[in-house]
Structure formats: structure tokens, C-alpha cells
């Protein structure tokens, strides 16, 4: 025992040491990370973000330099003239103390943002005197510079990445910028490029002592790529002007290509207010605005009952199912009786065929068509599913798949849906007759309505709508899904009579006063009842004003859907806006000056104020400016 104790102690101690080393060096890998954080400074070289152009090559979004003042607390001089900095930068002493304290908490040795995003003038003033402020430093970053006050909903915006993004995608580091919403998000990787990385060996005083391992891990920044959108800058700006003090959306599509020409939501905001030091204040204000919802892209997100434009689809399905032909006639007695004691009202009177059914927007006619379609089948379930499948071939009731945030699906009911509502088969065509005129259970987003018109203009097919036109200079590299035609289940020959009816809407029908000199427009008015909850009570509001159209009739270049919330009836607000948009796009110049003047200076503020006034109010009243 006396001989062996020392060797035993030596061996035991060695085992403990080796076990501990094994744990520290092999099992616990946190020290590797700590060591990297310690000794290796990673310096990023941020490439400039790609520019965004409109379809005609006009610059929409560029970049501007922005300057952040950084502070490194340990390097600050003791006799710093705090007062001078405060007055130079127009900040309070409290702000100064608070920021320096915050920086010290983050790290006394590393630079933290002291004052972000100075403009050029502030920068110049500070730059002159920076030598006197030890510990302060200026870092240049690149921010978006918008060349248009419009299109905020299309562009999206750029923000600093948050923790969940950093965790999910290791490319992003704290403080990096990332595109959010709109094309900034959808084409993030193309626009941003790839940042360059330099590894620099530091010593314990945080001084740089050279390139880490002679730079073998360093990478060079890859410039961001410019993109060209299908948006027409002029049309987009014009659309936003027309939506003066109105709520709703305008979507214009080029039928031949599926390119989105304008995507207007109202109310909107100038994209430049989400740049710079006021960004978070402005964002919070808009985010909290639950009444006007400026961040809510109504063109993609608002699901409205489509109203009368839906009759186009009812007619097409009727023709395809061969329950009617162009000459089939139904009588209208200011409506029609579709069941025992059930009557659908209509403003029309007399015999109706497809053509005047469309231009008079006769409820009785389309109610009958719908009833025949459903009742063609032995059970209403089969009828509804056949009807629903036709509609789905127009991209309805599902995400369209455009290159913008996915929006909403809208709703096209199926037999399953009604079976859930009316178990035991307690429903028939008459139960769901409102769908025939775009009320009831169907709902669509404005972009779906516009795409429907593009499909009609193309007589049976559409491209998935998209805002991208070209990536970089070539333009050959956009997603294949935007180059694939989608065919509907409606045969081509059925479209012509419907298009003729839509044309006659401008000749004899509900939009006869909205004709545009020299352009043959095919369109359809719509009026949709809608409800909201005020203090928990379901309350009907003034009807939505809807209009869909395409033009010119023989060589369609634009398909459009306009939605004005609580605009009373279709040709009241949405109709004139449609005419103006079409003329603007096709002629570049608007001749209807009086109409333009009226629309761009009058809105529906008094109508919207009714809902929030807390007072009882009447709906569907004539407008009093």
C-alpha cells in the first residue's frame, strides 16, 4: 500500500484530467464557437441590391446611401463634448446617455448603432467634426430609394432580419436586411446578391492583426441582379390617383401574357415612408390602423362576393353544359319565382336571351340558367360539383400562384360544402340560387376577377398572373409556370356570344354612358351586398361597386377588375375608373377630363365614416359631397 499509493494517485488524477479534456475538447463544441467569436472578426461586404424597373424600363426602385453613426463605448474620450454632439445631431442628452448605455450592455469593445440612417446633410455636418469625437464612427449602408410614390404593395419593403429568420436561414446575420412582402420578398435572393465575407484575426484588445489564415475562407460579394416588372409605372400611379379617398382595389392584367400591369390597393402609402429613421414609427402606425388597413393589399387579400360579373361564368357554364343556347329565352317579371314562395328580384322586365341577359344584367335569366345547370343532373350534388369544376378551371377557389404573397383563395362551394350545411340532402338548386348572380357562397379576390376577364378575353385560357417580366438583362429565366397556358373546361366557341354581350353592356346596357372614344370595351358592372359587424350586430352596409372589363374587343391588351367598397353600384365608381384606366393604358392620354377630375377629387369618406360614427345610418344613399 505504501509503495503503490503515489502511482495510484498519479494514475487516478490523470484519468480525471483526460476525462475532463475529452469533455471540453470533444463532447462540448460550444468552445469552438466561442473561440471564433473571440478571435475572428467577420467583415461583410454588402453588395448593392438590384434595381427594379417597370415594363417600359422606367426606374421604380433604386438605392440611396445612408449613414449610421456607431459608438464604441470603451474608445470614447473622457472629455467628450456631449453637448456639441447632441446639438449637431439634434438629439437630447437623455437619448445620448441611453444609447451609450445600451451600447455598453451589448459590448463595450464593439461598435453599436448610436444613431441610424442619417441623411446626407446630417452626415456632412457630423463628418466634418468626427475627428473630435473619439469612439464614434460612421458606417455606410444602402437603403431603397423609391422613384414613385405608388406601388408600395407591389414592392414590399426591406427590414432588418429578426431572430426566427436568422435561425431558419444561416445566410442572414443580425443587422442584415431582407425583403419583406411584395417582390422584395419573392425575388429576395435575386435582388440581394450574395454578400462577401472576410475573416480577420483579432487580438484580445479587439485589434485587427491581419487576415485569418491568409484569407482562404474569404469570399467575394456577388452583385444583386436588377429585375424588370410587368407593372406599368404610369398606370399604377394613375390607378392610385383614381382611388382618391376610396377603399378597394384595381387589378389590370395583359391577357396575352398574364403580366400584371397594375395592382392598386387603396388606401395605400408612399413606399418611401418605410425607409429611414421614421420607418418603425410609420410602420407601427399603419399596422395599428385597423379601419383603413393601408398594409392590407386588397387586390390580393380582399375576398368579396363578386356580384354580377359572376353571371359571365354562369352563362359560360350553361352553354358548356348545353342547358341553354344563345337563343334560349326566359321571361323576367322584375324577377322570377324559383320555388314555392321564393322570388329573386330583378330590375329588368320582358323576354331575355343571353345577349340582353348580360347587358341588362338580368337576375331572372341567370337564375334560370343556374337552376337548369344544377338540375340537369339526377342529384343536385352532382350538378354542383360539375358547376364547381368548371369554375375551378378559371383558377377560382384556390391560390392563383402568382409571384406575390399568396393572397386568398376565395371560395367556390362544392357539394361537400352544402352537405355539411344541410345534412340529409336537404338542399336543391333553389336553395343555392344566389350563387348564379355572384352572391351566396361564392367569393373572389379582385385579382381572380381580373384573371377571369383575361381568360374570357383569351377565349378559354390564361397564364398565371405575375409581376416579373425580366430578371437581369436576358429575360429568359423567369419561372416556367408563368409560361404555361392553363385551359378552362369551357370550349372556345362559347366565349364569342358572351363577349358580344359584354360589348353590348357599353352599347345598350348598364355601362352605356361609360364609352370611351375609339376603344371597343367589353365589360360588366357589379353590385354586391355586404355586411359587417358593428358592436356585435350584423349590419348591412352600402353595396360594393364592382366593374370588370377588357379591351380592345378584337385584340385584348388589358383585362381589368375594379372594386370600390361601398360604392353603391357598379357603374357609379368602378365603371368610370375602369374606363379611365383602359384609356390611360391604351392611349397613354385621357380624353375624359371631366370624369377624371371628378374621380380624382371625390371619394367615399362620408360613407366610410358612417360605420365608425357610432350613429345609426342609412345605406345605399346618393352621394352628397
Amino acid at each position, binding site marked *: 500500500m505504501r509503495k503503490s499509493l503515489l502511482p495510484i*494517485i498519479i494514475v487516478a*488524477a490523470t484519468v480525471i484530467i483526460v476525462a475532463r479534456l475529452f469533455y471540453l475538447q*470533444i463532447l462540448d463544441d460550444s468552445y469552438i464557437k466561442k473561440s471564433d467569436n473571440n478571435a475572428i472578426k467577420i467583415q461583410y461586404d454588402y453588395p448593392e441590391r438590384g434595381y427594379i424597373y417597370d415594363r417600359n424600363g422606367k426606374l421604380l426602385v433604386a438605392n440611396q446611401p445612408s449613414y449610421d453613426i456607431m459608438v464604441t463605448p470603451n474608445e470614447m474620450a473622457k472629455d467628450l463634448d456631449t453637448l456639441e454632439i447632441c446639438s449637431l445631431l439634434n438629439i437630447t442628452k437623455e437619448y445620448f446617455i441611453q444609447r451609450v448605455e445600451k451600447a455598453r450592455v451589448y459590448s463595450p469593445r464593439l461598435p453599436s448603432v448610436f444613431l441610424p440612417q442619417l441623411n446626407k446633410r446630417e452626415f456632412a455636418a457630423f463628418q466634418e467634426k468626427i475627428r473630435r469625437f473619439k469612439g464614434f464612427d460612421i458606417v455606410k449602408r444602402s437603403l431603397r430609394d423609391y422613384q414613385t410614390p405608388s406601388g408600395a404593395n407591389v414592392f414590399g419593403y426591406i427590414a432588418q432580419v429578426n431572430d426566427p429568420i436568422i435561425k431558419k436561414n444561416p445566410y442572414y446575420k443580425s443587422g442584415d436586411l431582407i425583403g419583406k412582402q411584395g417582390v422584395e420578398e419573392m425575388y429576395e435572393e435575386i435582388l440581394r446578391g450574395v454578400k462577401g465575407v472576410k475573416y480577420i484575426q483579432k487580438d484580445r484588445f479587439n485589434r485587427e492583426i491581419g487576415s485569418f489564415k491568409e484569407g482562404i475562407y474569404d469570399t467575394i460579394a456577388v452583385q444583386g441582379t436588377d429585375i424588370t416588372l410587368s407593372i406599368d409605372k404610369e398606370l399604377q400611379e394613375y390607378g392610385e390617383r383614381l382611388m382618391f379617398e376610396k377603399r378597394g382595389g384595381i387589378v389590370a392584367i395583359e391577357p396575352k401574357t398574364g403580366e400584371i400591369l397594375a395592382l392598386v390597393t387603396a388606401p395605400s402609402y408612399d413606399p418611401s415612408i418605410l425607409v429611414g429613421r421614421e420607418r418603425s414609427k410609420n410602420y407601427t402606425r399603419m399596422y395599428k390602423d385597423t379601419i383603413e388597413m393601408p398594409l392590407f393589399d386588397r387586390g390580393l387579400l380582399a375576398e368579396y362576393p363578386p356580384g354580377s360579373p359572376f353571371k359571365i361564368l354562369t352563362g359560360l357554364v350553361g352553354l358548356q353544359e348545353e342547358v341553354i343556347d344563345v337563343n334560349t329565352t326566359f321571361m323576367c317579371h322584375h324577377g322570377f319565382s324559383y320555388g314555392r314562395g321564393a322570388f329573386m328580384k330583378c330590375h329588368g322586365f320582358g323576354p331575355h336571351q343571353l345577349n340582353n341577359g348580360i347587358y341588362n344584367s338580368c337576375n331572372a335569366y341567370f337564375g334560370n340558367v343556374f337552376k337548369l345547370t344544377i338540375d340537369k343532373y339526377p342529384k343536385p350534388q352532382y350538378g354542383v360539383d360539375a358547376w364547381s369544376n368548371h369554375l375551378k378551371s378559371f383558377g377560382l377557389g384556390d391560390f392563383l400562384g402568382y409571384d406575390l404573397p399568396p393572397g386568398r383563395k376565395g371560395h367556390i362551394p362544392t357539394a361537400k360544402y352544402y352537405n355539411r350545411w344541410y345534412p340529409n340532402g336537404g338542399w336543391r338548386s333553389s336553395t343555392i340560387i344566389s350563387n348564379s348572380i355572384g352572391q351566396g357562397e361564392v367569393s373572389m379576390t379582385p385579382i381572380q376577377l381580373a384573371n377571369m376577364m383575361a381568360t374570357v378575353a383569351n377565349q378559354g385560357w390564361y397564364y398565371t398572373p405575375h409581376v416579373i417580366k425580366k430578371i437581369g438583362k436576358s429575360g429568359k429565366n423567369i419561372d416556367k409556370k408563368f409560361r404555361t397556358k392553363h385551359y378552362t373546361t369551357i370550349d372556345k366557341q362559347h366565349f364569342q356570344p358572351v363577349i358580344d354581350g359584354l360589348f353590348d353592356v357599353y352599347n345598350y346596357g348598364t355601362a352605356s354612358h361609360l364609352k370611351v372614344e375609339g376603344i371597343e370595351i367589353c365589360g360588366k358592372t357589379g353590385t354586391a351586398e355586404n355586411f359587417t359587424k358593428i358592436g356585435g350586430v350584423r349590419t348591412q352596409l352600402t353595396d360594393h361597386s364592382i366593374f370588370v372589363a377588357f379591351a380592345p374587343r378584337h385584340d385584348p391588351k388589358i383585362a381589368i377588375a375594379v372594386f370600390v367598397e361601398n360604392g353603391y353600384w357598379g357603374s357609379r365608381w368602378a365603371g368610370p375608373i375602369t374606363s379611365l384606366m383602359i384609356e390611360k393604358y391604351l392611349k397613354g392620354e385621357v380624353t375624359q377630363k371631366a370624369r377624371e377630375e371628378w374621380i380624382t377629387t371625390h371619394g367615399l369618406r362620408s360613407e366610410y365614416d358612417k360605420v365608425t360614427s357610432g350613429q345609426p345610418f342609412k345605406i345605399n344613399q346618393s352621394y352628397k359631397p
Partner: protein
Amino acid sequence: MKNQSVTNNIDWITILLYCLMVIAGWMTIYSASLPNEETSIFDIGQIYGKQILFIIFSIPLIMVILTVDAKIYDKYAFIFYGLGIVLLAGLFVAGKTIKGQTNWYSFGGFSLQPSEFAKIATALVLSKYLSDVQINLKNINHQLIAFAIIGFPVALIMMQPDAGSAMIFASLTLVLYREGLPGWYLATGAIAIILFLLALLVKPLFVVSLALIIIILQFFLTRRAHRNPILSAIVFVAIAGFVYSVDFVYENVLEDHQKDRINVLFDKDVNQQAEGYNLNQSMIAIGSGGWFGKGYLEGTQTKGGFVPEQHTDYIFTTVGEEWGFVGALVVIGLFVTLLLRIIYLAERQKSKFSRTYGYCVASILFMHFFVNITMLIKLFPTIGVPLPFFSYGGSSLWAFTILLFIFVKMDANKVNEW
């Protein structure tokens, strides 16, 4: 017989291990002290350049030790001891005070740490005393004298103060045990250390209660005839007194920086930028080494100078960072092989003097090795002791060289002893 060449009997394994460690030590110092500009390996303005000089000067030192008659160590042990004590005491007159500690003599550019040499002198005197045939460590008077031999230099060193060096002398208790000191001294020491740690880790009341339960259990589990209530009571009172005095000492006697070192070990509210910095950086350096390390001269912690005193007490962090787990194993392997080799050689000595001295060498080297490495990997409070043959410094290299080679000489000479 008498003039048989020393080289024939020398233990070449020990020499080889010594050379490997000194060379590896220098390479590590080179990495830890390499500046960022171009320099020559022999630049004596640089730390690694000086270390080369120290290594070169140790060669004549070894020659002298191996040449002179081994009998002088036996004969003049007390003179060496007296010299050591005078040097230690002289520090209070002529020593240089750095950060409140007076550990060094400084003449011009040359410094000397007498406590390093006091270890050798103490080892020699202890061996001399224990080798006397009349000495029996079962005898309480002889025990007291043996402890006094160790305690005298320790007291002087504690006054410098230099807790690290003083602690090294505690390892000589293991030598006493080998030579017949009753086992309960060690057992009591071990229990005291365990209680000490427990008292710092948890509330004293908890430790005392635990001790009470164990003592009561032990009391009732022994046969009635062997029960001794008075002894049990005394043991309990001793434990309780010890635990509470540890608590008292910690709260009232220890200086803040000493408390910090204990707190750092137990992760009690530690600021990693202040008192926790050294240990944290040391753990980062070692822990980031992985299996094979970052490569020689590639350690980022080492290059960045994050670990303080990296060429002296923290030299092993460079081994861990640049050579990884495998490299650390090799270095530890060198130490263990050397220690076991010394013990093996000691056991085969014919004279009790050289056997005891061999044990002293092994114990002292082991204590340095153990305290130095465990403090870097958070198994022991931070106490500044050098790693033998690796840490930078002339005093320590020469002291360890002399310590070791006196034994090598004794071992080589054993055939001449009769």
C-alpha cells in the same frame, strides 16, 4: 569500481523524456510568444529566444550535477537547506515586489525565484532526515520534526505571499507516508479537503447535518462492544467546527481576489470580463482544440493573445488549442511516464536517502503538473504554479532540471554506494 563511468549507468529513458518535454515546451512557448512581425528564432529580445538561452545554460548545469560526487547532497543537505531558508528570508530585505507579492530577486536583467530552489533543499534535508536509521515516523516527535522541516520554508513562502509554491510542499506528505507516516494523517487530510469543498458548495448547516447522520449511522451499525460515544462526539464537533470555520474563513479572512478564484470555480455570479476572464479564455482555448487542434502556430486564441500569461502558467492552453485532445494526451503521457519512471527508479534504490529523494522529486513534479493543468480546465482554483519543463522561465527550468538530475545522478551512482 569507484571511477566507473557515470554514463554507463545513467537512466537514458529519463533523459529522453526530459529532452522531449523541454523541446515540446520550447515549441509551445515559440507559438505562444511569436509576434506578428518577422523575427529570428534566436532573437533574445523575444521570449522564445530567451528560453533557448535558458535551455542551453541548463546543459552545463546537468554536466556539473552528473560529474560531482553524489555524496555531497547527503553530506551538505543541511547547508543547502540553510541557504534556501536564507534566500527566502532575504526576499523581505532585497526582494522585488510585484502586485503585492515578493517572490523574486532581480539583478539587472536576471531574476531568481528562491522558492523554486527551496523545494530542492527541502527535499534533500527531508530525505537525509528520514534516511537516518533511528528515525521512525510512527513516533510523534519524529513526525513533528519531519513536518517542521517542510513547514519552515512553507511559512516563509506564505509570507511572500505565494500560495501556489506553498501548496507544492504539501505533496511531500505523500513521501512521509511512503516512509511510514500513519495512514490516518492522509485520511484526515482527504476528509478535510472534501469537507472544505462541500462547505463552499452548499450551506454549512447541510454539511454538518449530513456528517451527523453518517456518524449516527456508523455508531449504530458497529457492534455494541466497539461503540465509542465520546470519540463519535469529538469527531462530530471537529467536523462541525471545521465546516463553520471554513465558512468563516471564506466570508471574513479570504481576500476578494481569493474569493473570486473559488467563485469562478463554482460558477457563482462570475463576470466573464473581469474575474472570470482568465479561466474562461483558457477553457475556450483548450475546448476549441477538438481532436487534433487548430494546427501548430494556427491557434486563434493563442495568436490573439486572449489567454493571459500564456507562455508561463497557461502554456498548456496552447497545447490544447493547437494540438487538440491528441496532443494534450501526448504531453500528459510524457508527464505520467516520467513520474512513474521516477517512482520505479526510486523503489530500486539501495539507499533510503536516494529512494526518499526520488519520491520527493516525483511528488513535487506531480503536484506541479496536477495543479497547473486542473486550474486551466476548471477543476481547481486558479493558483499560479508553472508546468515543469514547459512554462517559460529560467528559474523554474533550472530548478526542475537540478531537482531531476540530482536524482538521475543518485540513480546512476547507486552501484558505487557500497
